[in-house]
């Protein structure tokens, strides 16, 4: 188990090195940052001095190593637009995005798994068909469009919920959270619902497929023969057996939901990371783009690592298969 974990960790570090190189080359080598920093009418000697100050006269690999050295020490540079350290900027926006993402993924799992189990348990019922039709819609309909319709319905037409912003927040553990106030919750509901729909569809499908397969196995036949109630079978056998793929997807989806939050945050003016990256792209705020991408890559690699190790812990076959 330890050998497996160490091997995975080394792989993750290698991946991060490759990713940081790609991001660095992508953002810094395509296009000239000097065009942004130096006015076109600046004389040659000033231009040369600025180029030297930013180290842009050195070979690319030296620049990359310097950049890597700074990043390892937590220095992502300063934002061109906000004129503050990028890391502070990102950490300041992170709680809003985390709150939204967690609300969405938790909601999707808590609603999606029971619906999926039902649809897999009684696949021929009308209710199951409706659940599956909804899940197809959830997969197909673009997130931004659902967001618009939610705003149009609940904010513009009915006037029940606010159309954007975070609402009132309360400080807890040094950061502001919306979900602790009624006003904040009302602001959280629509964006969380918007972000959750795709995951909900996925959870439904996953739970349904797993349930359908397990209902046909000897485990269930035997449990029935032993006289267990159907609800007991569903709760103790089916739920337990479909838990592994659901845990995996839950972890992986946490990351991809952060990515989808870009769209939802833009529509609902939710002041999180996604809005920050869109703003930094439109303003060509390169240090923010690079930092965001590297942190997202780090997040993904970490999630993959944790899921892999958890998987090995939950399922001994994986552990044996991979270390052998």
């Amino acid at each position: 188990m330890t050998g497996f974990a160490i091997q995975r960790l080394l792989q993750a570090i290698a991946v991060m090195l490759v990713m940081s190189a790609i991001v660095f080359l992508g953002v810094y080598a395509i296009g000239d940052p000097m065009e942004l920093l130096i006015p076109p009418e600046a004389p040659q000697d000033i231009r040369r001095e600025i180029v030297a100050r930013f180290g842009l006269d050195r070979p690319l690999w030296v620049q990359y190593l310097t950049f890597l050295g700074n990043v390892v020490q937590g220095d992502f540079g300063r934002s061109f637009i906000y004129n503050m350290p990028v890391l502070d900027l990102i950490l300041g926006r992170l709680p809003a995005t985390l709150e939204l993402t967690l609300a969405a993924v938790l909601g999707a799992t808590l609603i999606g798994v029971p619906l999926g189990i039902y649809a897999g348990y009684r696949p021929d019922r009308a209710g199951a068909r409706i659940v599956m039709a909804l899940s197809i819609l959830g997969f197909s309909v673009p997130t931004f469009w659902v967001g618009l319709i939610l705003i149009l319905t609940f904010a513009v037409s009915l006037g029940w919920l606010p159309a954007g912003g975070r609402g009132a927040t309360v400080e807890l553990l040094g950061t502001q959270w919306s979900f602790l106030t009624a006003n904040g919750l009302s602001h959280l509901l629509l964006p969380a619902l918007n972000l959750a729909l795709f995951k909900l569809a996925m959870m439904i499908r996953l739970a349904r497929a797993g349930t359908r397969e397990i209902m046909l196995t000897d485990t269930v036949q035997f449990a029935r023969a032993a006289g267990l109630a159907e609800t007991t079978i569903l709760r103790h056998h089916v739920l337990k057996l479909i838990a592994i793929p659901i845990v995996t997807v839950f972890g992986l989806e946490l990351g991809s939901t952060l990515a989808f939050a870009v769209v939802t945050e833009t529509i609902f003016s939710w002041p999180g990371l996604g809005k920050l990256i869109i703003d930094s792209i439109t303003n060509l705020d390169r240090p923010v783009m690079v930092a965001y991408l590297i942190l997202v890559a780090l997040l993904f690699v970490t999630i993959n690592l944790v899921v892999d190790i958890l998987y090995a812990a939950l399922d001994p076959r994986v552990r044996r298969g991979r270390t052998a």
Partner: protein
Amino acid sequence: MSGGASPLATFWGNFVENRVAVVALAVVVAILVLAVAAPLIAPQDPYDLAGLSLLDARRGPGHVGAGGYVHWLGTDAQGRDLVSAILYGLRISVQMGLLAGMFALIIGASLGITAAYLGGRLESLVMRVVDLQLSFPAILLALVLAALLGQGKGQLIAALVAAQYAYFARTAYGAATAERRKDYIEAAAATPLSGRRIVFRHLLPNCMPPLIVVATVQIANAIALEATLSFLGLGLPVTEPSLGMLISNGFPYMMSGRYWISVYPGIALVVLIVAINLVGDQIRDQINPRLRR
């Protein structure tokens, strides 16, 4: 399975049994026809600025404008007839989806099959990169690439392809590794046929069914992604108004109750994507032998 009929006829026979899929296919075909024929059937050329009147701007559905005909779905902020704008928008969206899907299929499938056939270092390198990319959400990749490459049709297609080719590569690789172990490939490899010929004439055709399924889904995804990027202002330039851009243009007016500028283009987009996905679902169910009843 009926014995004598050709595989394609059998496939079609099974396909028409699912009424939802048939309707979806009809919708897809109808939209394709509308998109191709847009300049012929649209009541107005939405990009001929001389034909627009600001007096007609932001009118609701049913308004009769300066042109003397009814704007069934209303007009946008520039006084464009929305029916016409949607038809032209569909044209651009469909075009982007097909082009991106096609290039992603060609590049991804070639990479996946070559990796599976040649094996060795190339295999592990290509599949490492592909797996790495698959663990990363496509939307984020497309977003960043679209931002880096700048606006334009070519750039956007490149961004979409870069975000999507990995799905084709993974599918093709999976299918090809399974096929590769079969006797007919071994037999072909024993003859003096060139590797290229074996890959393209023997391996590729047998890997096609799963690739077709992925292609339908990915075309729908490309259309959705393009719309999302255009909505965020990172997609096509203003001169190429796809459905996403129409929706984005109408968003500010939504708050004041002028819903139609965003809602109707959005409905067109959703119908297109859902229809393609339903067709893809049916094809997948028919191809997947485990689900065959």
